[in-house]
């Protein structure tokens, strides 16, 4: 326990997280000449990005030439219920095609159209077929492609410098517990190697957070153990703030049976390719759940919905393809009304919709997943599905163009960053987000480092004792709690009290429990040594989960409306006044509790607002805002 061995490394840019955003950021930083470190909690290439199935949204227009960035921007804003940071949504829609095409130059092999271009598939909330894909394993293709691009850069470095790791190095199975500051600026990152338990200090003026989400704070989740909100917590402890943490996306279709796989994702492509949702009465219930704002875009009859698959020009899409928040709530209501499936979900059926061979060709990993994990043959019988915690729209508040957080030298991209998706993310917009803002974060970090002409920030040695003590705390107590138990209780509390449908008294209950968890988390006891000790790792992650959960709960209590990934039982409608409000969560120095403040949403530029017609805008904006719009026809 007294072994305080610490390794030290100096880099220009340290990227925390080796998923899509982290790797893309590292590639950019290295291409701009930065010595770059990638820190990965898992092995290289195992990041949660591999779980993404459907595809990457980019308006390349290969399937429908009428698609362009403006249409994509519009879909994204609609999906996010106009709470998106408009500049982020704009950059994302504009740059996504280039980011996808670039992957091909790294060696990616997407499915093709007849003309040999990248094939694009339909997805919920996207007006045209827009998702570049590889069967239903697009995330794996993305991560492998970026991983192999990094290897190819290392091969160049081997040729030029005689060292594979001269310019870019991956530190696998390494977790960061704290960011270190020099005054207000980032000076480094401190953590440990999972494998050995040794401590490590990275001295670097720029840190890119790309740590993904917070799903492990919920009981039913599609997220892996890594998703403990590390980046969110690190940013807050370093003085940055989080944006709109109340918006948590519950993916409508997760597996519900058997219990051990509950929550594992069932891709939206099942519905995009023809799968339909039915309740226990055999009814396609989604037709009863089309909200007013979407009435114009979705089919009213089953016949029309079915025709859309073959003739999308002349028919409206089926309501199974509504944005995720709508579908998740609908399933939730059906189950509550006792029209659910035997194991508490609803039926998702593709077996009666496509020939068996076609299902296996288009959805190979889904077929495989159900066959091997649930003993269900999806070509012969329906799946049972229900909502699962999937994604957090909230995250570190960043500058759209540079991905910089409010702390100088700190950047964030991907799921850990907030703003891009507003109150609800569209399927397929996540992978494109990773690439677009991963690159921008790498660029932002490189420019920041270049701008540091004089002295670089330095780590204070006294800080090291503090962070080391913080990390070793779980070994110090002789009597303490089992971290696994606290984690299970935390997940249960968040699931039950701050889940899909939220009630103020329950959220307050959750906050009271979280306060206790916070205390208990400082008194956990772990057995054994530091070398690859999962109990210790969980004890450290637990602190992050608690602080992030507090932000989620506090923000959820504050926002008195229902919008996207936040549904309040007592305020079931969307409120145009609340659309103007961002909730900012921070952790003031010296305070134990987090603090939530209101802040105005950035205005949508006139040329962007002109992409919508007045009738649609009136559903989202206040009368005052409507009155302030320019005269005449907006859509020019």
């Amino acid at each position, binding site marked *: 326990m007294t072994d305080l*061995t610490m390794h*030290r490394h100096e880099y220009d840019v340290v990227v925390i997280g080796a998923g899509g955003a982290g790797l893309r950021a590292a590639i950019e930083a290295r291409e701009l000449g930065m010595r770059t470190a990638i820190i990965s909690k898992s092995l290289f290439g195992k990041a949660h990005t591999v779980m993404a199935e459907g595809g990457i949204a980019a308006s390349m227009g290969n399937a429908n030439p009428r698609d362009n960035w403006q249409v994509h921007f519009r879909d994204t804003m609609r999906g996010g219920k106009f709470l998106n940071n408009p500049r982020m949504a704009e950059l994302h829609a504009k740059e996504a095609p280039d980011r996808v095409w670039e992957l091909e130059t790294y060696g990616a092999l997407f499915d093709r159209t007849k003309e040999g271009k990248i094939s694009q598939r339909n997805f919920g909330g996207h007006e045209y077929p827009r998702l570049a894909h590889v069967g239903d394993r697009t995330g794996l293709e993305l991560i492998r492609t970026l991983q192999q691009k990094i290897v190819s850069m290392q091969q160049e470095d081997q040729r030029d410098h005689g060292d594979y790791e001269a310019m870019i190095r991956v530190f696998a199975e390494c977790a960061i517990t704290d960011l270190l500051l020099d005054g207000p600026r980032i000076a480094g990152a401190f953590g440990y190697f999972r*494998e*050995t338990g040794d401590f490590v200090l990275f001295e670097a003026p720029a840190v890119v957070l790309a740590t993904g989400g917070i799903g492990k704070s919920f009981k039913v989740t599609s997220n892996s153990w890594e998703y403990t909100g590390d980046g969110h917590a690190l940013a807050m402890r370093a003085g940055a703030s989080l944006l709109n943490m109340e918006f948590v996306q519950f993916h409508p279709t997760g597996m519900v049976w058997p219990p051990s796989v509950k929550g594992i994702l069932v891709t939206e492509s099942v519905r995009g390719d023809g799968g339909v949702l039915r309740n226990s009465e055999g009814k396609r219930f989604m037709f009863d759940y089309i909200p007013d704002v979407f009435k114009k875009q979705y089919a009213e009859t089953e016949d029309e919905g079915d025709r859309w698959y073959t003739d999308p020009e002349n028919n409206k899409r089926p309501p199974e393809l509504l944005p995720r928040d709508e579908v998740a709530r609908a399933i939730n209501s059906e189950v509550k009304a006792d029209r659910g499936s035997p194991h508490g979900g609803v039926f998702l059926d593709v077996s009666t919709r496509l020939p068996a061979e076609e299902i296996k060709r288009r959805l190979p990993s889904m077929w495989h997943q159900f066959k091997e994990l649930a003993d269900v043959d999806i070509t012969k019988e329906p799946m049972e599905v229900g909502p699962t915690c999937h994604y957090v729209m909230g995250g570190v508040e960043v500058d759209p163009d540079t991905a910089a957080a409010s702390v100088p030298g700190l950047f964030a991209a991907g799921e850990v960053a907030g703003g891009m998706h507003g109150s609800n993310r569209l399927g397929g917009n996540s992978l494109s987000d990773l690439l677009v803002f991963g690159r921008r974060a790498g660029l932002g970090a490189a420019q920041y480092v270049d701008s540091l002409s004089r002295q670089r920030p330095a780590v204070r040695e006294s800080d090291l004792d503090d962070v080391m003590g913080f990390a070793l705390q779980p070994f110090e107590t002789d009597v303490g709690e089992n971290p696994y138990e606290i984690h299970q209780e935390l997940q249960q509390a968040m699931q039950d009290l701050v889940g899909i449908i939220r009630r103020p008294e329950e959220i307050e209950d959750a906050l009271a429990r979280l306060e206790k968890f916070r205390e208990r988390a400082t008194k956990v006891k772990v057995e054994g040594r530091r070398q690859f000790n999962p109990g210790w790792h969980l004890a450290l992650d637990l602190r992050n989960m608690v602080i992030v959960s507090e932000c989620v709960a506090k923000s959820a209590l504050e926002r008195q409306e229902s919008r996207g990934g936040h549904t309040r039982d007592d305020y079931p409608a969307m409120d145009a006044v609340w659309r103007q409000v961002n909730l900012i969560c921070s952790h003031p120095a010296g305070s134990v509790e987090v603090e939530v403040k209101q802040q105005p949403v950035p205005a949508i530029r006139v040329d962007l607002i002109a992409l919508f017609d007045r009738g649609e805008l009136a559903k989202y904006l206040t009368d005052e805002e409507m009155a302030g719009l320019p005269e005449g026809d907006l859509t020019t």
Partner: protein
Amino acid sequence: MSSTPPLRGDSAPTLPSVDASAPQRAGTDFPGRARIGERTLRTDRWWLQPLVTVTVLGIFILYTGVRIFMRDYYWVEEYSYLTPLFSPCLSDSCAPGSSHLGTPLPELPFFIPLPFLIFPILAGFRATCYYYRKAYYRSFWLSPPACAVAEPHTRYSGETRFPLLVQNAHRYFFFAASLLLLINTYDAILAFFPDTGFGIGLGSLILVANVALLWGYSLSCHSCRHITGGRLKHFSKHPLRYKAWTIISKLNARHMQFAWISLVSVMVTDLYILAVSAGWISDLRIVG
């Protein structure tokens, strides 16, 4: 700076160096690996498959070994049945009527088997076959006897050196065996047209079935799949070859089954002709 030597988590990935002069502890007991000791922890009957392979292949080798030295009972003149093991029969020692491609070779001394030219082709085709290689490397060489069961050898160089480099000649055996198979096909057709006129017997049907299975085995061969289309970089530029490749790929997935069934069918065919020719049984005639 830390003074301790860099530990694994912090060091660049490198391979542990192997001291070639040090006595090698075999297999999974190599230092640094989990010390489990047992050669395998498999609880299933992993030894069954190699055992069956050794038995069946052993029977085949014994049978054909004896058979090719026999100079009789390979030809049934009455029905024009010629065993595939002896076809084509090319020397003056061949039974009258059995050498329908002529006899370019003189009389052969007794110690040279009649099919001394064609048998090595048949055997070589199977010996270099990618499926049989798997089967006998596992069952005869025990390299490995079964997956995750340690092999008994201390050194292994695979197919990197002579003589196993010869395995790379598989495609030439494929070409040669296919030529022989054309002749076998001709033999099977002839068996419907003995001197007495058109006729169908159990023997001619067996010969046809055997030839069909042999075609299945030959066409499903990995080298055939490669030659047909596998070697192409762009299928889209060669639509016909692509089509052929997809068909052969489907057959190729059944190569193991073809390998075993055709092996047995060759033995059965030969045994049947032996029995008829020796007069142990008479051919079951259906027509003629």
